[in-house]
């Protein structure tokens, strides 16, 4: 049963990209456990504003686990201690009275801090721009039922496509690799006949862009999939490697 708790929150504060960051600890009283983690940060910010202090900058938007905007490292885990959720879906019932909760931004070379808990994830967009699409213009396409796709294949593509681009995979990875993110898109499109045609080219282009942007290599630790809020599977990385090798052989 949800009740009220008193907590301390140790938050990473950093005024700007170049500024020196530090932890600051805040006390919060009487927090309802039915509140979401971000609602707890809202309460903390209201408290800071009332004290005429600078509120904590953090990314958030849909607050229902789908936009991929929220991006906090809570007690050492991207999106916090619960599994298969984003930070906005984390509730205070996962914390106990008197606990000190540590909150940090994504820490990854390719995601520089903008302010406090807010990071720059444009690198993911750039990877997508390098090849994360089917080269088809609007109009002049065949009827949607012209090509039948076996249900298991469509379902697998859907599972890969459920990636929300939040960056937890790269943030969780000790190498700062974006392989799970890249492989999810490569898999989704390689599985479907519409995307199959460009599969090899796509894999090569996206991997090259990923390397260029300073993401690390994959050493198969599996941290990415374990922390992924959408449970995107490691099998996608295997498929990416296959597509990538095929592309290399074709060269």
């Amino acid at each position, binding site marked *: 049963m949800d009740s009220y708790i008193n907590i301390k929150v140790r938050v990473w504060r950093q005024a700007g990209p170049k500024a020196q960051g530090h932890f600051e600890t805040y006390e919060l009283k009487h927090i309802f456990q039915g509140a979401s983690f971000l*609602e707890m940060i809202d309460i903390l910010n209201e408290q800071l504003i009332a004290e005429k202090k600078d509120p904590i900058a953090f990314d958030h938007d849909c607050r229902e686990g*789908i936009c991929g905007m929220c991006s906090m490292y809570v007690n050492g885990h991207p999106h916090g201690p619960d599994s298969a959720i984003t930070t906005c879906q984390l*509730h205070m019932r996962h914390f106990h009275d008197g606990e000190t909760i540590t909150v940090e931004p994504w820490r990854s070379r390719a995601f520089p801090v903008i302010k406090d808990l807010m990071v720059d994830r444009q690198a*993911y*967009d750039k990877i997508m721009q390098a090849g994360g699409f089917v080269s088809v213009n609007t109009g002049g396409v*065949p009827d949607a039922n012209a090509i039948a796709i076996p249900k298991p294949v469509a379902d697998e593509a859907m599972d890969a496509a459920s990636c*929300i681009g939040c960056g937890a995979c790269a943030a969780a990875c000790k190498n700062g690799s974006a392989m799970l993110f890249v492989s999810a898109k490569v898999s989704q499109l390689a599985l479907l006949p519409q995307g199959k045609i460009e599969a090899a080219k796509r894999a090569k282009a996206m991997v090259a862009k990923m390397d260029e942007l300073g993401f690390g290599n994959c050493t198969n630790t599996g941290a990415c999939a374990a922390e992924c809020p959408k449970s995107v599977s490691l099998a996608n990385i295997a498929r990416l490697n296959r597509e990538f090798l095929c592309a290399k052989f074709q060269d």
Partner: protein
Amino acid sequence: MATKKDTKVATTTKKVAAAKKATTTKKATATKKVAATKKVADVKVITPEMAKIPAGPLAEKWTNYKDHQKLVNPANKRRLDVIVVGTGLAGASAAATLAELGFNVLNFCIQDSPRRAHSIAAQGGINAAKNYQNDGDSVYRLYYDTIKGGDYRAREANVYRLAEVSNNIIDQCVAQGVPFAREYGGLLDNRSFGGAQVSRTFYAKGQTGQQLLLGAYSALSRQIGKGKVKMYTRYEMLDIVMIKDENGEERARGIIARNLVTGRIERFFGHAVVIASGGYGNTFFLSTNAMASNGSAAMQMYRHGAYFANPCYAQIHPTCIPKHGDFQSKLTLMSESLRNDGRIWVPKKLEDAKKLQAGEIKGRDIPEEDRDYYLERRYPAFGNLVPRDVASRAAKERCDKGYGVNNTGLAVFLDFSEAIQRLGKDVVAQKYGNLFQMYEKIVDENPYENPMMIFPAIHYTMGGIWVDYELQTSVKGLFCIGEANFSDHGANRLGASALMQGLADGYFVLPYTIQNYLSDQIGVPRMSTDLPEFAEAEKNVNDKIARLMAIQGQRSVDSIHKELGLIMWDFVGMGRTAESLKTAIKKIDALKKEFWSNVYIPGEANSLNNELEKALRLSDFIEIGRLMAIDALNREESCGGHFREEYQTEEGEALRQDDKFSYVACWKYTGEDSEPELIKEPLDYEFTERKTRNYKA
């Protein structure tokens, strides 16, 4: 900046309009209308010609339009810049398609990536008239369901076009690699949504919006990669720049935007400006919208002379997770698709409801015979799949009578026990697993074992900026697409139709119609953003920001926004009366004073400042809230999402007043401290007979 736009909606055309009407509609009703117009002197009227509705039979209008519209040749497209604000389904699909056609596109979004626009959160599906299920669907039937679902308050021509292009959307998305759900035979699967008796909804698990948006985002990404779209993320438009042409007519020629990371105010030129900024549901503070969703772009258009149409039409979605505390930041939607298999009920006996409210018993403890499946009881033909407005009001009715099932008495059950028995838990999990998981994470209760608790919440706004058939506002060169415009849903939107409209506008309508405008603009060179009009617009923005920063009062932005939300919910919510609306206007006026004298914004204007962003948005929400109340007060009838308690049948159903209110209420800005002017676009139903909506038989 107040515009002195001399709109062409002139009184001189009024008589022509009235005369025209008399010839096209039945004499009797026409005379009645003219009489009604006389009483309220000087009410201006928008004619079908002014709305640019093409001639001809309903089914041929769009084809006729396309056959005769002007186009821009490829060499000239390269010389034209189009600004698109927003990257949701409408914005991203428009930006990508315009770039594919050869225009230079500047695309803006407030999030850190175009993929995060709130279309991403749409769950259930997208409608199309494919008739893949062979259950009798057709373009006409989709049109008819949509216009009936909207309670006959939408434009026939627009809705028909929407139904017509719906099929292209599905083809396009499949070609992009959108992983729609499929049958074992490999073909696309469908499900039913409210307000329809066919299965025409395409879906991708409970993440249809996400998959469609990612399809549009990938098309957009491709164009960004090619350099045809210049993408500006974490930028917020704060004003539209108007420049007079050689005839002295003002045209939208650019925007002023704030870089949300640096706080810098920047200027951008475009030959045309397309706004795809979504709806204004967050006026209520608590809604299913994302935290940053806002109505400021709409208000900027409005202040430049674009009409705000039907602001009172807001959709209250019946299946949301109930509110649980004052700290709450948003309400989470549970997809309408759940009503395919879930059954909605409250206890038959008041004493059972009291026990539920006290937490003494659970829903599963109440025996079958003591459950009131009130939607099935009241609406046997559509049952749990009645449209959203009907389902929401029915829930309110039961809760108002004391039958609510949670501690606040503001919830009803959505029960899957029968579906689990019929289909098995696995099938139910396969269909709705992610929604069930979401529910359990939030409420900490297992919906497989105990019925879900749901309650209506603000979800979507059918009202929005008035556009003509070309999706152009009443300001030249300013277009408005997606939820931000008013055009297709009338007074109530059917489930799975928002995605359809967003993508129809962006992929298949605007890229055509905007060329009819731009074909005249090929001789207009790119303008310098050093022009005095840009400087003045920027100064206005800076002045507003400085004014806000200087207040240094005692209250946080959110505390005032929450207060506005309560006023809206209590007085401009599911049941409105003349008295409640007058109260709302008074309270909003007082709150506006409080905001402008007592808000506190920490930090600096010229740096990242989330509180300043919120304050700017709230200043507009306050105005929108007022406009909603004014419009609701004017509309003395009940239709769709707008329910005036004075106008209902004996059974409590919405009672339209077609003789008086069969029009689009367009509000024209007249200045900061004066009341808006009402302009009417009559809705003459030429092809469809208006009936009382009946979901009973």
